[in-house]
């Protein structure tokens, strides 16, 4: 199913349509987020904004692997929301 709103509305790192993970924690962080955000009642717009802020905080390093950068920001945003809401 591709109808999960948190996955459907985000521009997750992909190559040829496949989700890209370089390390297992990245998939784990994604799966944890999908459930926790739903359970905590975090809307897709709120999450997208929180993620965008985390990506800004993380900064852009052209040498960093894109999946590592994305999921590090994902983890940061998720930690903050959990700290505030859970």
């Amino acid at each position, binding site marked *: *199913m*591709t*109808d*999960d709103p948190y*996955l*459907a509305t985000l*521009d997750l790192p*992909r190559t*040829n*349509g*496949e*989700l890209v*993970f370089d*390390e*297992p*924690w*990245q*998939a*784990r*962080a*994604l*799966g*944890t987020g*999908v*459930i*926790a955000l739903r*359970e*905590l009642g975090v809307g897709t717009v709120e999450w997208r904004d929180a993620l965008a802020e985390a990506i800004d905080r993380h900064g852009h390093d052209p040498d960093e692997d894109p999946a*590592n950068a994305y*999921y*590090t920001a994902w*983890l940061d945003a*998720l*930690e903050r929301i*959990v700290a505030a809401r*859970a």
Partner: protein
Amino acid sequence: MHDHDHHHDHDHDHDGHHHPRPVSEQELRTRALEATLVEKGIVTSDAIDAIIDRYVNDIGPQNGARVVARAWSDPAYHERLLADGTAAIAELGFTGEEGHTIVVVENTPDAHNVIVCTLCSCYPWPVLGLPPTWYKSAPYRARVVAEPRAVLEEFGVELPDATEIRVWDSTAEVRYLVLPMRPAGTDTLAEDDLAALVTRDSMIGTGLPLAPTAA
């Protein structure tokens, strides 16, 4: 933390576990976050495993199987699916940024369709999940174009000589999905039972649907 006696070169022995690779800071944070959420009763580790299986490792070909079963069961849907695959597939709720244009090619007694991406590994993932490893392999990509009948025989698909084999090369813009022929002896089956006969390979063209007794 556990060692305060300055024998840092032995500090991995304290818990009896050896880590074959360094554990990243993010991995530790991910574990800690999961533990916190489990403790609060917000997530379970099983549910996370299920999400990873379902969305991450492989969304699976079950979406495509539902599309095929609907087409076999509903003549009007069948017509819409062949006329505009993307729209008909979206009717069932399957969309994705990589699946914007999906063209459905129908197998008949006269023509058998096979999909490939000769350049890379383009694949109709909203309906089939992630591509199998062999789909991405250089030998499949080259040989299915040059000698499709031989490749299909290696997959166990033997077609009559009179059946034309059509190979469809996927691109970033256009992905193909094979609509296999409905197996004989399935006239009384409901849509869900039909979907169980539709294998991933039958929608790539390197396989045929299961026979009803084998389901």
